[in-house]
């Protein structure tokens, strides 16, 4: 029979173990919330009713609006278009857009351009560069003054994966030959999408990436990063910031030139090793943006997929895939 002393010792042992486990928890640092359940009381809205001196509209409290490297994340409600327009319009900028319309994708060009004319950078000079292997099928679209449309012929590739991985090279080459002289900022967009709401100068930055709509509020472990270490786009477990979408990226034309070159190099490295990344160039883009953080991040408002059910965080969809 177990004696009382032994029983007592074992009970003490158990209590101590349980106590240590509870206090230490899972080992992560606990940041105790500094506010009580009514955050409005402490919320610094900087509004003074007597003087109406400093007024700021409320921030978005439901989403992250600044990355840990202090790059803004652009959500509806975080910015004032008037202030931004008054800062950017006088600079007389030209914004470039690249889009690839290969094979059957030429049918999306008309819709893309019409919606862009309604919503994309209104009031700014815009150059659309449509890369296509089929220039005759590109429709003629009426553009507003100050906006141009240029067809960039490219050669046919056998498969869509091949086309996808050649995009970086094509954009890079085109910047070097043409667009670096013509535009200040460049956005590289997918063609099978439409603009639904305003896309303005809040998106301008040195290096701009957009968060993929399907992965913005899921745990990082579920991000479809390339995981095979043999690929140069591989991101190990536990690493990564966000999952960026390959359908929208951009920035200052010089910066876009630099990172498309780097991405193209890593894509070629994989090709030489006989491996194709899980999500083709999107995987390489994610790997690149992990070690060269974007200076501005666009919320999924700027890269939406209509087939994804709209969560409460998405207030306004600006650019979306349409079937």
């Amino acid at each position: 029979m177990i004696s009382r002393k032994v029983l007592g010792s074992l009970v003490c042992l158990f209590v101590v173990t349980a106590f240590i486990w509870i206090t230490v928890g899972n080992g992560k640092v606990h940041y105790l919330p500094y506010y009580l359940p009514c955050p409005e009381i402490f919320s610094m809205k900087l509004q003074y009713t007597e003087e109406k001196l400093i007024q700021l509209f409320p921030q978005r409290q439901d989403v992250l609006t600044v990355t840990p490297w202090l790059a803004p994340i652009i959500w509806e409600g975080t910015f004032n278009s008037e202030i931004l327009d008054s800062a950017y319009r006088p600079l007389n900028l030209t914004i470039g857009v690249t889009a690839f319309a290969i094979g059957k994708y030429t049918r999306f060009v008309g819709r893309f351009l019409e919606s862009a004319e309604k919503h994309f950078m209104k009031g700014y000079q815009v150059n659309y560069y449509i890369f296509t292997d089929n220039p005759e099928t590109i429709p003629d679209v009426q553009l507003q003054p100050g906006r141009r449309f240029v067809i960039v012929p490219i050669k046919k590739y056998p498969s869509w994966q091949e086309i996808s991985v050649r995009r970086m090279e094509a954009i890079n080459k085109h910047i070097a030959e043409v667009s670096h002289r013509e535009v200040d900022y460049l956005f590289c967009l997918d063609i099978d999408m439409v603009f639904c709401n305003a896309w303005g100068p809040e998106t301008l930055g040195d290096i701009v990436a957009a968060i993929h709509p399907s992965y913005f509020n899921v745990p990082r472990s579920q991000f479809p990063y390339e995981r095979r270490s043999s690929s140069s786009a591989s991101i190990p477990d536990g690493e990564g910031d966000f999952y960026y979408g390959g359908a929208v990226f951009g920035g200052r034309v010089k910066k876009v030139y630099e990172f498309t070159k780097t991405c193209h190099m890593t894509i070629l490295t994989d090709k030489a090793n006989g491996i194709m990344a899980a999500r083709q160039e999107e995987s390489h883009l994610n790997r690149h943006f992990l070690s060269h953080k974007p200076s501005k991040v666009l919320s999924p408002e700027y890269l939406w997929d209509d087939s994804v059910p709209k969560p409460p965080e998405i207030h306004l969809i600006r650019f979306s895939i349409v079937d």
Partner: protein
Amino acid sequence: MGITKLHGLAILVTAGITGAIWYHHPFSSASDQESTFSSEEGILLKTDLNETSPMLPRRQDVLVLTPWLAPIVWEDTFNRDILNAQYTQKNLVTGVVTFAVKKYVQFIEGFMSSANKYFLAGHQVNFYLFTDNPEQISHLQMAPENHLFVIPVRNYSQWQDISMSRMDIISRYIQSQFQYEVDYLYSIDIDVQLFEHIGVEIIDALVGTISSWQYTAHRESKSYETRTESQAAIPKGEGDFYYTASFYGGSVAEVYKLTRACFKGIVKDRENGIEARWHDESHLNKYFLYHKPTRLLSPEYCWEEELSRPRTIQVKRMCSVRKDGKK
């Protein structure tokens, strides 16, 4: 009864379990901040965004982004390791400009020793100390990467004049000297001390610090100049934040433009026989209204010691050390 084998076994088992728990859950948070430093790219790969929900806001109690998309720097909004890696890659040098005239020389020691320790620690900082009493400065121990330049300057009878002439002196020295020596330049009042690290999160093109008076009931102290005769006048109803003149800066080019514009306003006011309510601070606020800063520092970065600290101020990095009520 004495210690039996069973007692010894129980102690051993307890020690073993405690050791196992300690090993897997260290009490320090060091494992969390572990970073993978890739030598080729040099930017940290490990992030500190929430694992299960990366879009969770880190601070919900304060504004962290202005309407013109300038980040407002608060504790827990940034990862200094990532920022350090980005800063180091660009091989930048930052300068600090400060003035110690007349009785303000008493603050030099406290300021320099704390700034040397906490201001951009690990990076090269050039301290430019303007004083009317260079001989009185005792030897100051500087970190190996920092430099101290003592520059003699004439004193003025009134402290407001010193305060206002700072703008002129800074712009002239940027043109003649600083632009060749530093990339970023910050003007900091001498009568402050640093108690926590102020790092590269402050580095941006044009940076203003939100005044700690904004958080108190002392409306008087944080008002803009409203008399339209002054160049620093801000129309009623306008204004984003009230910025403090104790800590501002940015790239050398932007600070030059700022100091020139402010000094022009000061001179014009003097000609018209008017002095702005809060002197150079009023002019600074006028400038920041129409030339929005690209980054704002929260009042953590320049806390007025006599004010009671609200909960939103989690850290006091730099505090005034004024004993009397006047500046």
